[in-house]
């Protein structure tokens, strides 16, 4: 057994540019770094190459220009060591697997022994009593929670999240953001999340990267200094709205 708490990875992206064909750049000179355990959130217009950036980090799209280092390793190496995990936009559960089996899926694939306990995760996402249900029997929020637990089961050191809560209605979304922060404070994987919502970004992020429209460039990199020890209190805090306003103004200026 390895140590109970595994620190997140440091992420260092340098001078990354990307194009599918040679016609148009999707990403232009991206420089981005995250310290271990940090939550970085990318905000930007759709079609600004945000998802492509996640695909490059996971290695499914091959890097062309620039470098990605995850704890000093390339993305293929990081992936081979099972450091990465992904929570996609829609939960993408498998219809033939119960909640418990869906959460276990990464373990069935990787045969990784050093993992979190399924029962513990089920309890943390409040689904201990629904572990036997199939995805078709779940509400949208429950599916998303299951996908989150699936993304965490392998003790990832870098968690990639592509608009993970965007399919949910407002109330559920806020609840899940809060639950996510609570889970993150326990496991602290370095996280890179994409979102369209400024409120969501300010709520969960330690750092916000503002992306321009195509080709995607980072036009602003802001550290968020909000007290997030009690996630339930954040939205009751005036500072939160002040920061949301700041980011919105920035978007007005740059986009």
């Amino acid at each position, binding site marked *: 057994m390895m140590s109970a708490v595994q620190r997140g990875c440091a992420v260092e992206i340098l001078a990354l540019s990307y194009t599918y064909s040679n016609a148009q750049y999707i990403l232009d000179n991206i420089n981005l770094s995250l310290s271990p355990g940090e939550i970085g959130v990318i905000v930007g217009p759709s079609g600004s190459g945000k998802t492509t950036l996640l*695909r490059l980090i*996971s*290695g*499914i799209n091959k890097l062309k220009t620039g470098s990605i280092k995850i704890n000093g390793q390339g993305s293929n190496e990081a*992936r*081979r060591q*099972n450091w*990465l*995990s*992904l929570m*996609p*936009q*829609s939960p*993408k559960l*498998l*219809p*033939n*697997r119960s909640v418990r089996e869906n959460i276990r*899926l*990464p373990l*069935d*694939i*990787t045969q990784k022994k050093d993992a979190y306990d399924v029962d513990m995760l089920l309890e943390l996402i409040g689904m201990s009593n629904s572990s036997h249900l*199939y995805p*078709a*029997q779940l509400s949208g929020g429950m599916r998303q929670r299951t996908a989150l637990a699936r993304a965490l089961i*392998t003790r990832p050191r870098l968690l*990639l999240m*592509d608009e993970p809560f965007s399919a949910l209605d407002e109330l559920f979304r806020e609840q899940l953001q809060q639950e996510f922060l609570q889970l993150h404070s326990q496991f602290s994987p370095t996280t890179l999340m994409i979102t369209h919502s400024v409120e969501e970004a300010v709520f969960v992020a330690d750092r916000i990267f503002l992306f321009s429209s195509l080709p995607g460039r980072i036009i602003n990199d802001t550290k968020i200094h909000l007290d997030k020890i009690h996630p339930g209190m954040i939205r009751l805090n005036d500072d939160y709205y002040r920061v949301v306003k700041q980011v919105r103004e920035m978007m007005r200026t740059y986009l």
Partner: protein
Amino acid sequence: MKVLFSVLPSLLLVLFIVTVWQLTEDAINHERVARGETSLEFFIPTPRTIIEEGWNARDTIWRAMSATLQKSFVGFMLGTVAAVIIVILYDLFPIIRTTTFPIAFAIQSFPIIGLAPAIILLFGQDSFLSFVIVSAILTYFPILLSLDEHFNQLDNDYQQIAFIYNATRWQVLRFFKFPLSVSSFVTALKLAAPASIVGATIGEWIGSSDGIGRLITVSLYQLRPGVLYACLVLLALVSASTVLIIKVLEFVVFPWMRHERA
């Protein structure tokens, strides 16, 4: 009960058509016979004649039907298993797909009415295998096509999940592609099952000494239209029930599909 209510309207419609058919033809025949002309019964039997002749020939029809069903069932299983194996090979070894998919496509695009005699020539007149193969040819293609299409279009997010955990090709098949294609696989089976019966029947029609296909030709030449129509009605009923059987089996084999379809 729900099923009964859902088919009730079409049952009533069929009953209505059959009644109108019987009454109209009775009236016409009455006239014709009075004028000394031949009864229409020789061209279109009335429902009453179909039931009577069918009932009188029930042993013959039943023997023919069970012979046909045996061929179709074996052909259906053979076609299904072959399609699944081929698609798995396609997925694991893309070179096999590139080289043989056009051939697989070509085989099914021959009109079966032309291909069947060739197969019967090859595997023997009146040989069980001939009809099984004709039936299998009509079975495998819908299944091959639907699985192949699904396997080739695995959603980006699933691909990325599989990729991030270093899933092997086989694991991608087993954990992602198989379960995600069950729904369309079952739909393909529902198309393939009646097709397998059509295949066996066409084979028999050309070169068999038993089976429903044979009985249909025989009743045509013996001028027993009632039996011919009875065979057709039975074929339709049997084909429809294969679809029903597959519907039920789906939930037995894939219990989770119950929730997916709900």
